[in-house]
């Protein structure tokens, strides 16, 4: 009996310490990411969505603290999932008003990470819940799951290379849910192949965007005009 009381007591005592750990971990991560004021990056973007057939394209990415983010295809059309601003992890922590709760430990791509749930305290926050999977040892964010009010839920998987010191990933895979896409046949007037009709492809309701960064130019300044919206 005494042993039980002791164990319970210890757990109760240790919890606030644990909570402190999560918050501290997130703060540390934030601080690391805050070293980046701005960057210009080049990379390649691949879209994997059942109803989009697009080639991998060369992109330019611009970031400026706290939350200015733009992904552009040079001379082209870029297709980003809504909430695509969150592809930028540096913008994740714009809002300080959240509560960090431990969600245990989880292995992400074979690396042990600490799962931390961030619950926004603001009532009207667009983000409803965010779960971060942090590589504590290297202080790197390996994965995040985000549930938003308006833009659905999505996940981001990050892998790092030479820019890991800055907390900037080499590769980001952004996964999300998609809605059905369909246009009337009378509008599109498509050529019908005929022959044995292939089983109607069940539209995969999930899609992903993969960005592979080739280079970052960090803290060298970014022109404001890079963040201006292009006319459709």
């Amino acid at each position, binding site marked *: 009996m005494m042993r039980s009381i002791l164990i319970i007591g210890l757990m109760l005592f240790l919890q606030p310490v644990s909570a402190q750990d999560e918050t501290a971990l997130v703060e540390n991560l934030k601080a690391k990411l805050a070293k980046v004021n701005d960057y210009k990056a080049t990379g390649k973007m691949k879209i994997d969505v*059942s*109803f*989009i*057939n*697009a*080639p991998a*394209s060369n992109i330019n990415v611009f970031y400026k603290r706290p939350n200015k983010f733009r992904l*552009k*295809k040079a*001379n*082209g*059309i*870029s*297709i*980003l*999932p*809504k909430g*695509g601003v969150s592809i930028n992890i540096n913008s994740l922590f714009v809002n300080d008003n959240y509560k960090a709760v431990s969600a245990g430990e989880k292995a992400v791509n074979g690396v042990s990470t600490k799962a931390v749930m961030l619950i926004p305290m603001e009532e009207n926050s667009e983000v409803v819940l965010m779960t971060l999977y942090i590589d504590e040892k290297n202080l790197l964010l390996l994965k995040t799951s985000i549930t938003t009010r308006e833009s*659905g839920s999505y996940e981001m998987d990050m892998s790092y290379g030479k820019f890991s010191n800055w907390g900037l990933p080499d590769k980001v895979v952004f996964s*999300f*849910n*998609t*809605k*059905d*896409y*369909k*246009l*009337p*046949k*009378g*509008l*599109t*007037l*498509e*050529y*019908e*192949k*005929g*022959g044995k*009709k292939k089983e109607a*492809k069940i*539209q995969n309701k999930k*899609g992903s965007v993969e960005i592979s960064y080739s280079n970052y130019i960090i803290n060298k300044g970014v022109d404001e005009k890079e963040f201006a*919206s*292009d*006319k*459709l």
Partner: protein
Amino acid sequence: MWQLIRIELFKIFKKPRTYIAFGAIAAIVFLIQFAFYSDGDEYMAFLLKSVNETFTLEGKLLNGYFICYIILQTLLLHVPLLIALVSGDMIAGEANMGTLRLLASKPVSRTGLILSKFIAATVYTLALLTFMAILSLFGSMLIFGVSDLIVFKTEMFVVLESDDVFWRYIAAYGFAALSMITVSSLAFFLSVFAENSIGPIIGAMSIVLICTILISMDIPFFTEMKPFLFVNHMLNWKGFFDRPVDYAEVLKSALVLIFHIILFVSLTIFVFKRKDILS
């Protein structure tokens, strides 16, 4: 034979009705370009309605390549009428004018006469398509600039990078020319039976229109019929805007169209050689 073709071309381009087609195409192209210039966003929004719920698209969606695609899609439904206007008149018009008996009593073979008329009609078709290409492609590129092209299909859309688009248009125009020559050969074939060009013109257009309606309906019975309708294969200029281009399918469609052209022209020659010219 060259002499005959030259004579036929001379007659075609001396007729006022020939120029109706050029005028009509210019008007349609300018109207579409003007409409998109002033209010293209709404149309874009409609096309992207379901996409915009999940995605944000940025960049110059409403660019010259896109406008040209819309123009082609629209025009290639209506250009057949303009083609039939001339091709349907090639034999029936001469019968109506009373000049067919003059031609057929000359020391030229009936086969040579038909072939020269058909070739002349084909030259006209190509001239019309070239005119259309210049206005719709180069005109749109000039007015709207160029960027990536988004092609909207029923269950997906295709993004083509801007430097990967121009050759597709050249290929598509080539294929469209083949499609229009098929319509021309149909109207030409019907022309051999009539002594008034209205019949073949309306006949050819009715066939194209009915088939177009059938292929746009999502009813299983009609879906089964589609591969057998040459009008369906006419649509395969769109095949060049696929990633990757299914060259086998495009080639198959091209061969179907060529087959129809040969069939219609051969039948025309067959009928005309046996025809008693009473007009």
